């Protein structure tokens, strides 16, 4: 069960034009930086990217936007990126904005083998347009479909060669639910260890969900909003 590949380039080798990708992370936190760099280098185009945010102009998915590799973004919040806004307003980029919990739960549904979920989020808003609704116990819910992604690309703190993953702090965010949801899941980790090095009780994503794993390098881990308090 050795799932190790030698590099990000190898991990993404068969990602092709027009595919649908899930990319873990919240803002710039917990992003698969190495795979994004490899995708930019490879130059695949026409991608549909499912990711909570769209990065900033020079980091994260923003790097792929800059090279016009993304046809469509499916996100919940995209406000930090001028190039994104330009492409959106000019019609070059298609964007589907969906509630954050709906985004996460549609990933979860895919990973749990469920075709759809019901959520009240978006009832009475434009998010509900054209969607089936059901009333349970007097309250309306929207039916939202599980995602169907060719690849899920996630970032974990530690992983073993069998693909078991452990995340660190709020860099966990969307990574575990996306890891469960890809037809093929690629995990990049800060530290790759041997089977047995991770406590089975502490695994967040069991290796069965992960198809390829590698130890990333040169993590920048950029901070979007550096907020501090003064020493008194």
């Amino acid at each position: 069960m050795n799932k190790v590949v030698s590099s990000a380039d190898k991990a993404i080798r068969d990602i092709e034009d027009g595919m649908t990708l899930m990319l873990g992370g919240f803002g710039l936190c917990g992003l698969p930086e190495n795979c994004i760099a490899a995708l930019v280098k490879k130059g695949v185009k026409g991608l549909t990217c499912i990711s909570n945010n769209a990065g900033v102009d020079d980091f994260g998915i923003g790097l792929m936007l800059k090279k016009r590799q993304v046809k469509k973004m499916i996100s919940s919040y995209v406000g930090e990126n001028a190039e994104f806004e330009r492409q959106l307003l000019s019609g070059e980029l298609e964007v589907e904005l969906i509630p954050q919990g709906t985004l996460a739960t549609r990933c979860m549904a895919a990973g749990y083998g469920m075709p759809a979920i019901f959520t009240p989020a978006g009832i009475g808003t434009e998010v509900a347009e054209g969607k089936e609704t059901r009333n349970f116990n007097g309250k309306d819910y929207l039916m939202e479909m599980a995602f169907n992604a060719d690849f899920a690309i996630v970032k974990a703190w530690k992983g073993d060669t069998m693909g078991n993953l452990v995340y660190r702090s709020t860099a966990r965010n969307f990574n575990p639910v996306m890891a469960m949801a890809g037809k093929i899941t690629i995990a990049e980790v800060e530290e790759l260890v041997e089977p047995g090095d991770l406590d089975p009780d502490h695994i967040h994503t069991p290796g069965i969900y992960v198809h390829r794993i590698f130890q990333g390098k040169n993590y920048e881990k950029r901070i979007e909003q550096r907020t501090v308090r003064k020493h008194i």
Partner: protein
Amino acid sequence: MLDKEGIAKRIAKEIKDGYYVNLGIGIPTLVANYIPEGIDVVLQSENGLLGMGPFPFEGEEDADTINAGKQTITMLPGSAIFDSAMSFGMIRAKKVNLTILGAMEVSENGDIANWKIPGKMVKGMGGAMDLVASAENIIVAMQHVNKAGESKLLPKCSLPLTGVNCVKKIVTELGVFDVLPDGGFKLIERAPGVSVEEIKNATAGKLIIEGEIPEMVI
């Protein structure tokens, strides 16, 4: 009249011992600074944290530890980390006792608009639609009028909605308002130095005034 800090201070009085609270971006974030002494609350950040603490000291920032506004934060003892699906699971399941968020418009039946200005701003709803669709206790913190001087407390929202019939209470620089189940903004308290007349003039939606309205104490 209250400033932003004043609005945050007044809202903090609504927080009760034992509450799990989700604070939105903007004025709601400031509420964390005014939680009354002796009250035990846990702050939820919807990117996946219960137990959010203050900003880190300079030099102690951790890129992996941020809040839903993408700000560097710390975790208090007893914190718990979880993924985004569970985060909205606990919101949907009504485990979070109080949600405080900002708004561009609120209507007299409790509809809220805060995610999109067609043709101008398209940033997205983030977690706001999930929060307002499920939370039972929603307080809106906002300015009473917009930059053009127009009331944000309306008969009907003009902007795309975030959620319907969900806002329970509003705190603005002018006062505190309950949104009644049958419709209408019921004036509960006036901000210091603000007259009922001023509030009437700044409120486009149905305003309900019963008896003497006390000035708030903060």
